[in-house]
């Protein structure tokens, strides 16, 4: 029997003491229940390496490592990971957190992250000691709302949550919109896979965001604000709640702040778990208690937002910049960055790069500088192939643009976008068709289902991409993909659908030959797509150490000690473990 996936569960004493047997039973039960027993194999192994965090399982082929599991988690993982194909991030093994943030590399400039890791987020006095709430004091004591907006205009700050809309203009629209009740909202939904920029700020420097929101509220004339934070960030939520309480205790939230004729308070709402809830109108629906589904604009939130009232919504990072701008002046902020993209931006560098993690750099830094100087270069000295920016609705930028300045305009020009700061480096071993397929899988799954082009169109695109990656591509597929992409982009209701075709369009633009290789030559040039590759053992090189056979999760490798080993392609699930463990590099991909 050929299994699609294999679950290894650690059977060491420590894990068993912590309930590994119950977890195993729950796994079995869930597999039965969801009718996966012919597709998924569960194997107990002696240890998986993190028995201090047991019960632990590892799921192959992708090798996701889950720790600290309960039986409920086990069931959830089967549903999410194996049925829906979405690894459950909150349960995966993470390197122990390394706060304080590692010191910035030479080229980094920390504005938003300045305090992160330096101050105790649970202690408001730490923040105040770093000039915290000075800006709010200044605004309430000395500045009119118009002056606040003018300062933002000078700063050139643009929204950090996606489209880069000028923040001063957004605030002006909300300020000018007629209405007695106005709101400010902080978008902390951060749903892009692999993104954690906003989380770091919320967990490390919550008061900077609170202060930024209070200033925004003053500028537009709001008295109530909401934090919308994804439920997967329990620590951020807890930190925020504590910070809000402290701010209230210090009179920095509530009635007559700093004795001024300005009252403002904040509430934290937990995200509903769907990616689309980060879209501003869906987010407001969700706060209102409805299913988070985007609605058409106009009217924009600035005129008709939360409960139909004028509302300003900004990203966490946008707000976190505000106190700094007020405190140090708009021109200080504008001195960083490029002509139209001012200030700094945080990115989560990930993928095939030496130093992954959170960075903050002035806008306009080139891709090359970010990858090589800040990120330490491509992992293992491999060749740079592309960088994917902008999250699931972004695009892949090829090597020829290594010297492209990273700012709103330039990213857009080459078919990608800034998004919230995803920055995934890809090396020569990355298959661009597979990458496009990966993102399409994500967006089609996260489509809220409201509008037809996105709900149905992304599905049709994914089916084609799946076929191509499985070696069943047909002539005409590329053209159909292009047609679908354009119509979905033009016809969808919200940014999710409008942006969903981007990864495909940009890879088609720059890596069309890879699509063609998949379709016409039935090869995957990067040797990634499982339907198009085979693992083989070079008999000349094999020393018969048996290591591959022992590590193969599906026992696809046969061979006696000291004799050449052979992989049975029918059983092999192309997990690549053998290639990783072979001491003499005898395993190769064909």
């Amino acid at each position, binding site marked *: 029997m050929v299994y699609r996936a294999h679950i290894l569960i650690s059977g060491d004493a420590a894990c068993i003491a912590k309930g590994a047997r119950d977890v195993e039973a729950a796994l079995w039960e869930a597999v039965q229940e969801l009718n996966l027993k012919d597709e998924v194999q569960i194997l107990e192994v002696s240890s998986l390496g993190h028995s201090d965090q047991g019960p632990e399982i590892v799921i192959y082929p992708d090798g996701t490592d889950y720790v600290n599991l309960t039986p409920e988690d086990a069931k959830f993982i089967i549903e999410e990971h194996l049925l829906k194909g979405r690894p459950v991030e909150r349960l995966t093994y993470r390197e122990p957190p390394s706060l304080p943030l590692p010191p910035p590399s030479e080229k980094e400039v920390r504005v938003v992250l300045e305090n992160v890791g330096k101050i105790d987020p649970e202690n408001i006095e730490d923040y105040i000691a770093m000039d915290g709430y000075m800006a709010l004091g200044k605004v309430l004591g000395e500045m009119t709302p118009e002056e606040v907006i003018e300062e933002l205009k000078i700063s050139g700050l643009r929204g950090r949550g996606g489209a880069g809309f000028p923040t001063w203009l957004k605030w002006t629209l909300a300020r000018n919109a007629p209405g007695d009740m106005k709101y400010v909202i902080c978008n902390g939904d951060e749903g892009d896979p692999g993104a954690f920029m906003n989380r770091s700020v919320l967990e490390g420097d919550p008061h900077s965001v609170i202060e930024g929101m209070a200033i925004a509220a003053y500028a537009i004339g709001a008295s109530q604000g909401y934090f919308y934070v994804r439920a997967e960030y329990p620590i951020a939520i807890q930190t925020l709640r504590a910070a809000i309480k402290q701010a209230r205790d210090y009179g920095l939230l509530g009635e007559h702040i700093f004795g001024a004729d300005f009252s403002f308070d904040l509430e934290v709402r937990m995200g509903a778990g*769907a990616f*689309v809830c980060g879209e501003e109108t869906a987010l407001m629906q969700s706060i209102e208690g409805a*299913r988070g589904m985007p*609605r*058409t604009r*106009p*009217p924009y939130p600035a005129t008709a937002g939360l409960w139909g009232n004028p509302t300003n919504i900004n990203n966490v990072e946008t707000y976190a910049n505000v106190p700094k701008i007020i405190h140090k002046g708009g021109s200080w902020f504008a001195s960083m960055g490029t002509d139209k993209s001012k200030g700094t931006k945080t990115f989560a560098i990930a993928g095939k790069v030496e130093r992954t993690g959170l960075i903050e750099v002035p806008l306009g830094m080139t891709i090359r500088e970010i990858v090589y100087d800040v990120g330490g270069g491509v992992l293992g000295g491999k060749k740079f192939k592309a960088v994917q920016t902008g999250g699931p609705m972004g695009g892949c930028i090829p090597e020829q643009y290594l010297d492209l300045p990273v700012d709103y305009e330039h990213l857009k020009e080459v078919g990608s976008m800034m998004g919230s700061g995803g920055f995934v480096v890809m090396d020569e071993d990355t298959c661009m068709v597979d990458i496009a397929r990966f993102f399409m899988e994500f967006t*089609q*799954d*996260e*489509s*809220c*289902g*409201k*509008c*037809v*082009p996105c*709900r*149905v*169109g*992304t*599905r*049709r695109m994914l*089916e084609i991409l799946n076929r191509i990656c499985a070696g069943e591509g047909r002539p005409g597929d590329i053209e159909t993909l292009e047609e679908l992409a354009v*119509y979905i982009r*033009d*016809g*969808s*209701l919200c940014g999710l659908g*409008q942006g969903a075709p981007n990864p495909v369009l940009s890879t088609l633009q720059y890596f069309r030959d890879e699509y063609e290789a998949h379709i016409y030559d039935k090869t995957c040039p990067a040797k990634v797509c499982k339907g198009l590759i085979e693992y083989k053992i070079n008999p000349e090189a094999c020393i018969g150490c048996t290591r591959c056979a022992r590590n193969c999760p599906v026992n696809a490798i046969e061979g006696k000690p000291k004799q050449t080993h052979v992989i049975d392609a029918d059983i092999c699930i192309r997990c690549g473990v053998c290639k990783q463990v072979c001491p003499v590099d005898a395993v190769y991909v064909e």
Partner: protein
Amino acid sequence: MSEIHLTINGKPVVAQSGQTILEAAKQADIDIPVLCHHPALANWGACRMCLVEVKGMRGLQTSCTCPATEGMEVETETEKVVAVRKFVLELLFSERNHYCMYCQMSGDCELQDLAYRYGLDHWTYPRPFEKMEVDASRKYFIMDPNRCILCSRCIRACSEIAANHTLGLRDRGARTMVVADLDVPFGESTCVECGTCLQVCPTGALIDAKSAYGGREKDVIHTQTTCMQCSVGCDLDVVTRYQRLLRVDGVWESEPSGGLLCVDGRFKPLYEKRQRVTGPLVRKDGKLVAAGWNEALGIVAEKLQSGSCQGLAYCATTDEALTAFARLFAKVDGAAGRIEPQVAPLGFGQVAKVQDVLDADVIIVTGAQPLEYQRVIGYFIHRAADQGAQVAVITDDENGLSARAAMTLTSAEAGKAVETAAGAGKVVVVYGTEIKPEVIAALKPLGDEAYILALDPARNAQGATAAGLQPQEPSDVDVLYFLLGEQSEDAALLAKVNGAFKIVQAAYHSPLVDQADVVLPTPIWVERTGHVTNLDGSAKPLHAALLMPENVRDEAEALAALADMIG
């Protein structure tokens, strides 16, 4: 509201500020296709059929949501727009099972119409859909998700019009499904079977069990009449074909209910099980046997003049019949009255119309169970509550409205409702026959500002009142004449009937009919002409959608004939 000027497809159009492009276009007779949009529902913007190009605006705009503004230049059928519409249709046809040949909606389907309009002549995309289970757990209508296009009309109808919030969506992306409550079978859900969702569904996804495959729009006849199942008197659109009753729809933009109906008006009358009285009957040798009208009326006329008599009517017939009934008994010096109890006026406040419930700020309900007996009023109260109205139910028993009321009070606590109403804007008191005197006294301080809606338990109570028929009990007379119409007597009445000579005018057989000495048939609601006066006090017209059976005569006419015979 001010006038604005725009051009649509080069044509100058005048619209009101606040109108959408779609509304402006409609006024100017420019047809923009829609699927998820429905004029009775809030705009949704999901299906993308109504996309248009607006000069100066980025991307395409959904005309159903985009406000028309001064100077706007709109194009509704550009190449780009048409291409996207066609694309959307192609996707919808690839999403689920739309083999129209086997669909009961074929010919009347809004999706199919648009497919013809935009020239879909082949399947463009593969159709990897899986068969989904049909849900037939409700008696009157069926949900076939295989034909559903997820337009959410049904969901919005359920929430916005019926205020019932049963329907919703589950999951995301391609797995999105319309479900009831937390995904239970419809028949086990909180659905009240008002059928509003059924009426708004553009495709063959929601199917009426009775009329399915019974005829397409081009084959059927529509007759507008008034519902006679309760005193609300909603407008009905009765659909028939070849003298067969197919379906009942609500009438949008009509008073009092604006298109909303309830299970009693829309469905139940189509499933009538009682045996019809199809012609006059007279008792001969102890047995009821068929007779001609002349013979039967002759006996009745003679009996009415030969001794003391009393006429008792259920308020279940037309204004004309009730008036003729009162007149007849005046002529023979008999007493005449209505059988059902009557709600007494409260002695304060101004008379409310049904629609007043909708924009009330405070609604006080007492002595009535609208969710059971005047359901549309119950739904209206829910709707008002959704809009923020405070609902106070004053009752010493159970009341279905309590579940979503701001407060449920005992009679002794009625004063609290008055406190809530103090300074609260528009206050509507909805009450029925069960109202307690102490509650009336407690509510009195509401004064004449308050709107009062009396829910008379009888269907055509106002018609009876206008005819001068007051509640009466059967008395000790020689001849008792019962005008039942479609209402079969209740046991209490039957128990009070004495050994008098009994004339019963009724549509259906019942114990009382079977005891009668003379039985006269009556038409039923779909066969009626004339008027019925609803609790708004408007005499609403009745139009016959079906012919009466051959030997049935309208009550008003039969009663007039009797009066003539008596001379």
